[in-house]
């Protein structure tokens, strides 16, 4: 063994150095993650209470709670999902089951969804303001904000839905056809249920994206922090609330911290649930083999 050492030593030193660098990089990323989380938790946990979650904000948000803001957030989310889910999943079904992978229409749809996925959220905000708020006359409202978000969610819902449907083994399609089942029955009774975990994971990712969004809502759903009376009222979402407190309200940091803690907790839970679903789905795919 001894005689091989001189030959290899340069390589070994480089190997060690690379390993060390990579471990340091990984450690730094972990440290940054822990740093952010601990800062938010430390700053927010003292201010957090049940009454903070249900009360209305007072004094521009410095005091009081975030009750109406949570309601607005949920309403915006519901509007977005109601619009985006049927559209997204129908498109996914079309792309995965009805058009061949290299058809012109299919690739046009796929390409434009890809572009849509890359559009910056502030640009969605501009579009939502010009189209939903002004052109369609919805004004600054939960409806207009929700529809703007729906446009943002489409690419995620379509791509996860399509991937889920494509992962369903072809044997199911062949057997169903051999049994004389129509494509529609096959899709609704067989393929969509089989792809359900992936659809659900996409749904959760979409919810996460929607709840986190700020820039697209600034000039569509607006800033008003009162309890919304209808979908045509302006409503402030949690993310905008954090932005407003930290930028425009001096002395709002404690509330902002607590709101950030609420937001981040919700998002971590949603994302972990989505990961669980995809992991479980991949496991289940492997087992019956």
């Amino acid at each position, binding site marked *: 063994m001894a005689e091989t050492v001189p030959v290899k030593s340069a*390589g070994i030193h480089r*190997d060690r150095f*690379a*390993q060390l660098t*990579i*471990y340091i*990089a*990984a450690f*730094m*990323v*972990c440290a*940054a*993650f822990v*740093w*952010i989380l601990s*800062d*938010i938790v430390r*700053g927010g946990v003292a201010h957090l209470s049940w009454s903070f979650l249900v009360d209305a904000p007072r004094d521009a948000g410095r005091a009081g709670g975030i009750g109406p803001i949570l309601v607005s957030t949920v309403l915006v989310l519901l509007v977005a999902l109601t619009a985006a889910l049927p559209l*997204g999943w*129908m*498109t996914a*079904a*079309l792309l995965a089951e009805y058009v061949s992978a290299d058809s012109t*229409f299919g690739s046009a*749809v796929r390409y*434009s969804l*890809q572009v*849509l996925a*890359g*559009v*910056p959220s*502030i*640009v*969605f*905000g*501009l*579009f939502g*303001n010009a*189209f939903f708020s002004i052109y369609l006359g919805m004004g600054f409202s939960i409806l207009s904000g929700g529809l703007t978000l729906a446009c943002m969610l*489409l690419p995620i819902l379509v791509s996860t839905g399509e991937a889920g449907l494509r992962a369903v083994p072809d044997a199911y399609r062949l057997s169903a056809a051999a049994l004389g089942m129509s*494509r529609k029955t096959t899709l609704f009774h067989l393929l969509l249920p089989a792809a359900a975990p992936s659809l659900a994971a996409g749904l959760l990712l979409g919810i996460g994206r929607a*709840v*986190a969004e*700020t*820039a697209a809502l*600034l*000039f569509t759903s607006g800033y008003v922090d009162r309890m919304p009376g209808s979908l045509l009222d302006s409503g402030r979402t949690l*993310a905008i609330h*954090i*932005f407003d407190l930290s*930028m425009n309200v001096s002395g709002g940091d404690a509330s*902002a911290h607590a709101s*950030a803690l609420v*937001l*981040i907790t919700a*998002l*971590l839970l*949603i*994302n*972990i649930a989505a990961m669980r679903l995809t992991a479980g789905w991949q496991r289940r795919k492997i087992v019956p083999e």
Partner: protein
Amino acid sequence: MLWLLCGAAGIAAALVLLILLFLSAESWPALRHISIGRFLNDPSWNPGESMYKLTPMLSGTLYAAGGALLLAIPLGIASALFIAYYASPRGAGIYRHLIELLAGIPSVVYGFWGLTTLVPLINQLHPPGASLLAGILVLTLMILPTIALTAHASLLSVPPDYLRGAAALGISRWGMIRGVALPAAKTGIAAGIILAAGRAIGETMAVLMVTGNVVQHAASLFDPIRTLAANIALEMPYAMGDHRAALFVSGLTLMLLVMMLWSVAAQLGRNRDG
């Protein structure tokens, strides 16, 4: 049934065109009244006095995105290598999930954290604190997951035979990574980097909250800057007429920039498949 599905897909596909249409329509007054040259050559950005110089914001955007890429590319690729080749399976799983969670943190929270933690720290180093540097650091954290996850995905698709072959030749781990794995995965990694660049250019809230928003060409890392996206968010609430149209022009510019980057990335992805 098929027509229903085609209709849905048609709406989804038409959305991009609709967005382009509305951005162009809203930009039109500005493009008609103000020549393109003025966006570059006006003395300053001062919409109240009809001066529409966009270059400082363009430079701010590019500096911030470029700096963030400079930091995030090595960190992201190192993270991907860590998951793929260095960590134990358990460690790799945990680290991967951590990166995914990092990707799920909303930009407003990054911005808020930067504002309350990073900016005071930088302020001690060199006032005012709200600066290009703060923007770069926050953006780095935000685009790192994109680079790490796409790089990991393309490392995974390197045929294991290559790696076994390299190992059988007695090549060290780093030699194998540098000589076999990274070259085989390079187009995928490049596509990921381009996507991350698109994200960095379009990012609004976090950058807006930590960079101070002074319209100027930054002379050092500690100077405050304003990016195109931040400018839109800051001035939209009160912009009227040509000013509003000028903001839509910058939005359209952003969108075209990002679309271009994505097309390049998609092209790379196709070449890899083909």
